[in-house]
């Protein structure tokens, strides 16, 4: 069975999205970050004065906050940031038809299967290439019902009041260093509004592609789900493999109004050279349901803890998270649930897989405020280690100020056992097939929540990864 000598590094060739597209940006800020660059970004976007003022304020907050000393290893991040291009504009304007997107960029998304998925299973698609959305489209059926699915920039332009009323209310710039950074230099991302009572039958998807070497991508997404509405939003991310590091730091704000149900699915599969530090948070109002389904497969370091603030009575939050840490990758992920109102319920299920020298950490917070009577929360985190060199840690934080609350926490660590591998191999599967089946079984409770196409893709990715795990 796979003794360490058999553990082969997860070759970068296994990463099938690592290709580079030859494209010439129409504008690229110089490397590094200062006030001038923030002004440039704002000017390029033709923004109102208040937004520029917000950006500049956020920049000061960012500069005043120290690098986090917890989570992953950020000791070399500042160096990376000094060399980073904070704004790279790929084309002059965003298009509504793939035919109008420049050929090389269009081909990139075709290779990633986006237009095909759009035709088959999606209600709408947004595609971001480096710093800007290059394409955004919503099916007529939903547009006519008043659904807004646009780039964040167009959201600001075309729906200024709705935008200003909500922007930065869920995640203020001062929330954390990287939220501040995003608030200063944000570019791209989606603006989504689902009118009350509207039920989107198929998902919306936004796809984030980094092409430029040393890019910093800072998408910003604002989603408002109207009372009693239902919708599902999917985010996918990939990047080329470069020898230098890149940086991705998104901020996702979601407001789930009374009795609405919203699901946000992430399938990020960044290349090995990506720092991925994302803040995503939902305010969940009375009787509403929020669900984060968070799949983190790639990157060098991911720090991401989707959170639900359960603000109204009976609000419910679900966080399902799968992390896969291959060789030299660190997935520091988990979730946060904050119970503010009575009878709120939440659940966090986290499954991590570490292979080779990969490391996964579960980091979670469950907080119940005084007065959130009968709040109930359950946390379950399971880690699977593939090799002797793989590592996992658990950091569950629980803060309860309400006597009537019930909070459960369960954590398990398992190793792929030799007996399991032998059992499967004795039925004719080779070692990689056996390993992939065990891993698929392990994540099954979460994978079964994905739309079929994505579950199949996830399984395929795992098979690819497992081929590299054995000699």
């Amino acid at each position, binding site marked *: *069975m796979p003794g360490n000598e058999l553990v082969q590094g997860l070759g970068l060739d296994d990463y099938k999205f690592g290709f580079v597209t030859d494209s010439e940006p129409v504008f690229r800020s110089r490397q590094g970050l200062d006030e001038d660059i923030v002004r440039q970004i704002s000017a390029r976007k033709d923004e109102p004065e208040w937004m520029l003022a917000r950006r500049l304020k956020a920049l000061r907050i960012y500069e005043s906050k120290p690098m986090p000393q917890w989570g992953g290893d950020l000791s070399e991040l500042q160096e990376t940031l000094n060399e980073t291009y904070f704004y790279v504009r790929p084309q002059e304007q965003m298009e509504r038809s793939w035919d109008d997107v420049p050929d090389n960029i269009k081909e990139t998304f075709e290779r990633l299967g986006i237009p095909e998925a759009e035709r088959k299973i999606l209600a709408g698609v947004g595609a971001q290439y480096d710093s800007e959305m290059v394409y955004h489209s919503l099916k007529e059926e939903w547009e006519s019902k008043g659904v807004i699915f646009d780039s964040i920039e167009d959201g600001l332009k075309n729906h200024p009041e709705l935008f200003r009323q909500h922007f930065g209310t869920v995640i203020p710039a001062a929330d954390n260093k990287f939220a501040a950074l995003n608030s200063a230099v944000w570019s791209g991302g989606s603006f989504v509004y689902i009118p009350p009572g509207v039920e989107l039958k198929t998902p919306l998807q936004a796809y984030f592609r980094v092409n430029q070497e040393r890019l910093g991508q800072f998408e910003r997404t604002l989603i408002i789900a109207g009372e009693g509405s239902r919708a599902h939003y999917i985010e996918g991310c990939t990047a080329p493999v470069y020898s230098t590091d890149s940086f991705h730091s998104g901020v996702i704000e979601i407001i789930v109004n009374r009795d609405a149900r919203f699901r946000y699915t992430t399938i990020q599969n960044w290349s090995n050279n990506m720092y991925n530090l994302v803040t995503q948070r939902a305010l969940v109002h009375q009787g509403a349901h929020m669900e984060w389904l968070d799949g983190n497969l790639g990157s060098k370091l991911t720090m991401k803890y989707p959170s639900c603030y359960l603000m109204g009575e009976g609000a419910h939050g679900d966080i399902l998270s799968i992390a896969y840490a291959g060789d030299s990758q660190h997935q520091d992920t988990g979730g946060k649930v904050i119970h503010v109102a009575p009878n709120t319920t939440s659940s966090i299920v986290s499954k991590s897989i570490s292979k080779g020298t990969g490391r996964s950490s579960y980091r979670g917070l469950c907080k119940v405020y005084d007065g959130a009577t009968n709040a109930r929360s359950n946390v379950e985190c399971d880690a699977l280690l593939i090799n002797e060199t793989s590592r996992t840690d658990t950091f569950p934080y629980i803060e309860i100020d309400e006597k009537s609350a019930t909070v459960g926490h369960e954590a398990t660590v398992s190793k792929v*056992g*030799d*007996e*399991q591998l*032998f*059992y*499967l*191999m*004795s*039925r*004719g*599967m*080779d*070692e990689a*097939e*056996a390993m992939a*089946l*065990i891993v*698929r*079984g*392990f*994540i*099954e*409770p979460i994978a079964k929540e994905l739309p079929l196409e994505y579950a199949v893709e996830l399984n395929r990715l795992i098979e690819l990864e497992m081929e590299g795990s054995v000699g």
Partner: protein
Amino acid sequence: MDDTPILAVTGLRARVPGVDLDILKGVDLAIRPGEIHAIMGPNGSGKSTLAKVIAGHPAYEPTDGSIDLRGEDLLEMEPDERAQAGVFMAFQYPVEIPGVSIANFLRTALQARLENGDELDLFDFQELLMERMELLDMDVAFAQRPVNDGFSGGEKKRNEILQMAVLKPSLAVMDETDSGLDIDALKIVSNGVNTLKRENPEMSVLLITHYQRILDHIVPDVVHVMVGGRIVESGGPEVALELEARGYEEYRNVHVA
């Protein structure tokens, strides 16, 4: 029937790395196509070890002797290659595979046997699975349960035989499949094995058991007695009856002497 053995074990010694003492101390065994051999023997005598060495368990290290399958060196093959060559072992203690349904598990196992690029026909598979479950009097819903996860002892054993019935081996090694089965289940499982035998008269069986009872249903051609890592006696079904009456005492003495 063909006289060349499908399985030839010669002078086989094996141990667990790090433990000096051999568990198998020179086992000789030849099974011809279509034959049913039973192995009986006291606890700890090495029966499961022999089964696992045949199947290629990595925890055991063969130190001497050989195992040939149709003249091919089995010890040179990986466990999956052995399975693909027709070896099947029904485990004494099957492990749990959480999150993987029996159906999914068997589909993957069958798919693994196909040439690269060939896709298993899912309709055919479904049909085969249903038919085999019926043969073993199993509820179809059982196929959706995760492999061995939360199974009762008897369910685990039955699941082993279901796998055997689907994978259709040419050499089936059954390690105490009868232990833990109730009387009705024992009959169903035995009938299942006999049906497989009828479907493929060339199928050979190596059946490890502590009880003469199963041998009333699956009638062996040869019964071996294993003590202290060696086969100390071989004969017809009457050997099992004698053991039932007298136990292993005399062999222990022989062994010690």
